C-alpha cells in the first residue's frame, strides 16, 4: 500500500500539524501558514482516497491492538469518505476565516486555539474512517476533549458553565450509555466491525435491539437528540469559527454520522426494519425537529437561533436514517454534506456581523444588508438552502428524505418535514427581510464589511452551497453506495 492510500495519513497530518503549530506559537504568521498548509494537505490526502472508495475499495490501516481481538483500525467506506471530505474541505475555508476573525477580535490564546483545532480535526478523521466501534468511540471521546478548550476559550464564568454542560452531557452520555451499548454489542456479536447488513442479525431479539438502539441514540450525545441537546446552544459561547466548523460541521456531524453508521453497519437497516421496538426513534427525531425549530423561532440571539436550527437539522439526519428506507438513508448522507456547507455559511455571516458591527441579536439587524451586502447575501443563500429551496444543496437532501418518507408511506414523517420547512422559513426569512428591507436604526453608522479573509471564506461556502446542487453526482455516488448496503 502506498502512503497516499493509507487512511492513517489523514490522522497523522493534522496531528503533526498540531505539534508544528504549537512549536510556531511565537510567530503568528508562520503559525497560521502552518494551519493553512496542514488543512490543504489534509484535504489532498482525503481526496486522494476518493477514487479508490468510488471504485469499491476499502482502504484500511491497522493502528494498534487495543484489546485482545479488538484492534484500533481504520477502514474507509463511502459515508466516512463523504464526512471526511466535508470536514477536511471546510477546514481550509474555516482556517482562512479564523485568521480574519481571531485577529480582528484580538482574541487571546490563539496558539492553543489553532492546536486544539488541529487535534479536533485529527479526531474527526479518526471518527470518519473508524473501522470498528471501539475506534469510533476512542476518537469520539478525543473529539469531545479536544474541543472542550475551544468551547471554554474565553475563560469567563459563562464559558466555564458552558464547558461543564458540554462535557457533562457529552462525556456523561458517551460513558454512561454509549460505552454500555458497545460492550453489550461486543458481548452479543463477538465483533465490533462495521459490516454491511449489520452485526446484530440473529444474535439479539427485538427487545434487546430496542434497548441497544436507545443506548446508541442517546449515548451519541453529539447528535443532540432531545432532551440531550442543551450542550449545543451552550457551546455557542465559543469564538465563532469554533461554532462554525465544530458545532455546525465536525462535532455535530460526527454525532449524526455515528448514528447513521450504527444504524446501517451495526444494526443493519434490513435487520431492524419492521421491528416494533425501534419505532420510537422517528418519533423522538420528529419531535426534536419541531420543538427545536420553535425554540429557534423564539430566540433573539443570532447564534442561539442558529444553534437550535442545527439541533433541528441534525434530527433530519436521524429521522432519515430511522425511516430505514434506502432513499431516506441516501438523503441522510447527503444532508450531512448539505447542512454542513449551508450552516457554516450562516455562522460565518453571524461572525462577520459580530466582528464588523458588534451585533449579536436578531432584533439589531435592521438594515444591515445595506452596509454588509456581501455578508447578508451569503447568509440568504445559506438560509434558503436550509429551507430547502432549489437551486441549493439543502433541496437535494430534503428531496431524498421526503421521497423516502413518502415511498414508505410514513405520512407523519412527511408532515414533520413540511412543518419544519415552514418553521425554517419562519425563523430565517425575517432576518433576511429585516436586513435588506427595513431601514437601519439610529446610530448604526460607522461600519462596513468584515475583514477580507472572512468574506472570502463566506463566499466560498456560499458558492459550495450552490455547487452541491449543481454537481451533486460525487456525493450522490458515495451516498448511493451507502444506501445500496455496500
Amino acid at each position, binding site marked *: 500500500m502506498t502512503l497516499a492510500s493509507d487512511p492513517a495519513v489523514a490522522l497523522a497530518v493534522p496531528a503533526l500539524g498540531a505539534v508544528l503549530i504549537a512549536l510556531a506559537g511565537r510567530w503568528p504568521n508562520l503559525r497560521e501558514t502552518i494551519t493553512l498548509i496542514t488543512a490543504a494537505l489534509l484535504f489532498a490526502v482525503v481526496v486522494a482516497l476518493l477514487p479508490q472508495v468510488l471504485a469499491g475499495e476499502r482502504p484500511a490501516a491497522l493502528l*494498534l*491492538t*487495543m*484489546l*485482545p481481538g479488538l484492534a*484500533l483500525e481504520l477502514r474507509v467506506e463511502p459515508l466516512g469518505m463523504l464526512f471526511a471530505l466535508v470536514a477536511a474541505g471546510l477546514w481550509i475555508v474555516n482556517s482562512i476565516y479564523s485568521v480574519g476573525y481571531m485577529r480582528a477580535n484580538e482574541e487571546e490564546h490563539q496558539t492553543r486555539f489553532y492546536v486544539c483545532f488541529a487535534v479536533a480535526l485529527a479526531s474527526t478523521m479518526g471518527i470518519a474512517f473508524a473501522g470498528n466501534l*471501539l475506534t469510533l*468511540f*476512542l476518537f469520539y*471521546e*478525543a473529539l469531545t*476533549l479536544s474541543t472542550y*478548550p475551544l468551547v*471554554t476559550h474565553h*475563560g469567563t464564568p459563562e464559558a*466555564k458553565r458552558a464547558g*461543564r454542560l458540554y*462535557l*457533562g452531557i457529552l*462525556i*456523561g452520555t458517551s*460513558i*454512561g450509555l454509549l*460505552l*454500555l451499548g458497545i*460492550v*453489550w454489542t*461486543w*458481548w452479543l456479536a463477538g465483533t465490533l466491525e462495521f459490516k454491511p447488513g449489520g452485526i446484530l442479525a440473529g444474535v439479539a431479539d427485538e427487545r434487546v435491539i430496542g434497548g441497544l438502539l436507545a443506548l446508541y441514540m442517546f449515548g451519541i450525545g453529539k447528535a443532540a437528540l432531545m432532551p440531550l441537546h442543551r450542550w449545543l446552544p451552550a457551546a455557542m459561547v465559543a469564538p465563532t469559527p469554533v461554532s462554525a466548523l465544530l458545532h455546525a460541521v465536525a462535532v455535530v456531524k460526527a454525532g449524526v454520522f455515528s448514528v447513521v453508521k450504527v444504524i446501517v453497519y451495526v444494526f443493519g437497516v434490513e435487520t431492524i426494519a419492521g421491528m416494533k421496538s425501534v419505532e420510537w426513534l422517528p418519533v423522538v427525531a420528529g419531535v426534536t425537529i419541531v420543538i427545536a425549530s420553535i425554540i429557534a423561532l423564539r430566540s433573539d440571539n443570532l447564534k442561539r437561533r442558529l444553534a437550535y436550527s442545527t439541533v433541528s437539522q441534525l434530527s433530519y439526519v436521524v429521522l432519515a436514517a430511522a425511516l430505514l428506507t434506502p432513499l431516506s438513508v441516501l438523503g441522510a448522507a447527503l444532508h450531512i454534506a448539505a447542512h454542513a456547507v449551508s450552516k457554516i455559511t450562516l455562522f460565518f455571516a453571524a461572525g462577520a456581523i459580530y466582528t464588523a458591527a458588534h451585533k449579536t441579536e436578531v432584533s439589531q439587524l435592521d438594515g444591515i444588508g445595506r452596509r454588509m451586502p456581501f455578508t447578508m447575501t451569503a447568509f440568504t443563500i445559506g438560509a434558503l438552502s436550509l429551507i430547502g429551496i432549489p437551486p441549493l444543496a439543502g433541496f437535494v437532501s430534503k428531496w431524498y428524505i421526503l421521497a423516502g418518507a413518502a415511498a414508505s408511506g410514513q405520512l407523519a414523517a412527511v408532515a414533520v418535514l413540511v412543518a419544519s420547512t415552514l418553521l425554517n422559513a419562519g425563523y430565517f426569512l425575517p432576518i433576511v427581510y429585516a436586513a435588506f428591507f427595513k431601514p437601519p436604526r439610529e446610530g448604526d453608522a460607522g461600519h462596513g464589511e468584515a475583514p477580507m479573509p472572512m468574506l472570502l471564506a463566506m463566499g466560498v461556502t456560499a458558492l459550495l452551497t450552490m455547487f452541491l446542487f449543481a454537481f451533486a453526482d460525487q456525493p450522490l455516488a458515495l451516498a448511493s453506495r451507502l444506501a445500496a448496503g455496500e
Partner: protein
Amino acid sequence: MLTDHLPALQVVVPLMAAPLCVLLRRGWAAWLLAFAVSLATLAIAIALLLQVQATGTISYLLGSWAAPWGIEYRVDAVNAPLLVLVTAIAAVVVPFARASVAAEIPAAQHYLFWATWLLCLAGLLGVAITGDAFNVFVFLEIASLSTYVLIGLGRDRRALMAAYQYLIMGTIGATFIVIGVGLLYLMTGTLNIADLAVRIGDVRQVRPELAALAFLTVGISLKLALFPLHLWLPNAYAYAPSVATAFLAATATKVAVYLLLRFGFTVFGQSHVFANLPMGKMLLVLSIAAMFVASTVAIFQSDIKRMFAYSSVAQIGYITLGISMLSVTGLTGGIVHLFNHGLAKGAIFMLLGCVALRTGQPSIERLAGLGRRMPLTAAGLVIAGLSLIGVPGTVGFVSKWYLVLAALERGWWWLAMLVLLSSLLAVIYVWRVVEACYFREPAGEWKEAPLSMVIPAWLLVAACVYFGLDTTVTVGAASDAARALMGAVQ
C-alpha cells in the same frame, strides 16, 4: 548460579540495603543506594516474570529446606506481575523523591527515611513472593511498621495522628491475620500455602476453618481499605510525605488485594469461599458501596490529597468488584485495574508532590492557575485524571471495559450500568482539578517543578496512555493470573 536465587534476592537486596543506609548516614548516599536497589529489584522482578511466563511457576526453597517444613518462595502467574508493579513504581519514585524528600523531611533524617522506605519495599515484596502463610504475616508487619513511620514523617502535625490511627487499625488487621493463620495451622499442621490448599480439603466446614476464613478476610480487608474498613486511609495518604503517599497508594493496597486473592482462591478455594459461602455477594455489595460512597465523599474534599485518597477507596472498590464477580473476565478486570490504578494513582500523587513542593500542602485553592504556572504538572494531572474516569486511550478504560463485560456475562446489566455511572462521579472530582488549574488566576509566582520530579511522574502518565492503547502485556498477564486463580480448585 545467581539466577537461581532471584526469588530470594528479590527480598534480600532491599532488606539488606536498609541497615546499610543507617550505616552510610549520609542522605545522598542513602538515596543513591535506594536508587540502585530499586533498579536491581525491578530487573529481578522482570526476570522472574519472564521466567514464569516461559517455564511456569518457580518454587524456591530458602536454605534448601524442603517445603512444607522450610520456607518456600513461590512465583507464579499471579504474583509475578505484582512484583513488577511494586518494583517499577519504586524505581520511578526514588529519582522523584530526591527533591521532594529534601523539601519535606529534615536533612538529618534522610538516611532514616531511606532505610525505612527500603524496609517497606522489602516487606511488600516479601508478602508478594512468599509461599508461607506465617511468613506473609512477618513481611506484612515489616511493611506495616515501616509504613507507620513513613506516614508519621509528614510535615503536617496531623501526620502523627494519621500514622497512629493507621497503627491501631493496621495492628488489628495484622492480629486478625495472624489469628487466621494460627487457626489454619491448628487444623492442618502446615503453614505452606500450597500445602494448605491441599490439606484444607480435609477440614472443610469445620467451625475453626470458617473462623480462620473470617479472621483472614476481615484482617486483609482492613489492609486493603475495603469500604467500610477504609477509615485509616484518607488521613494517612493526605498527611504522609508526598513520596510516601505516591509509593504506598500505588503499591500497599495492591499487595493486600493480592493477599485476598491468595487466601480466597488459592488456599480456601473459590468454589468453597464464594459458591458455598456468601462472600461473593458481600464483596459485591461492599464494592458497589465503595464506588459510590467514596467517590461522592471525594467530590466534597477541599484537600486535594484527601480527595484522591477517597478516590483510591472507590477505585479499590472496582478491583474487589472484579474479584466478586467470580469469572475469568471479572478477575481479569479486577487484576488489570489493580495494575492500572497503581499507575494512575502513582502518577497523580507524584504530581501532587510537585505541587506540594512549590506551594506547600496542596489544597484545591493552591491549584489555581497551575495550567499556566506549572503546565507539565497540570497536564499530567489531567491525563491521569482522565484515566480515573475511564476515558478511552487511558488505562482506566481497559479496566472498565472488562468489568462491564464481566457484569454483562453474568447477565447483571444493572451492575454494568452502576460501574459506568460511578465513573461519572469521577468526572466531577477530576473536573474540579481541571477547572482550578485552568480557569482561575494563578495564586502565586510558582515555577514548574524540577525535571527530576516531573520526568518520573510523566513516565507513569505516559504509561497510563501506553497501556491504555496497547494492552497486550497488561491484559495478557492479568488474564493469565485470572485463569490460574479460577483453575486453582476445580
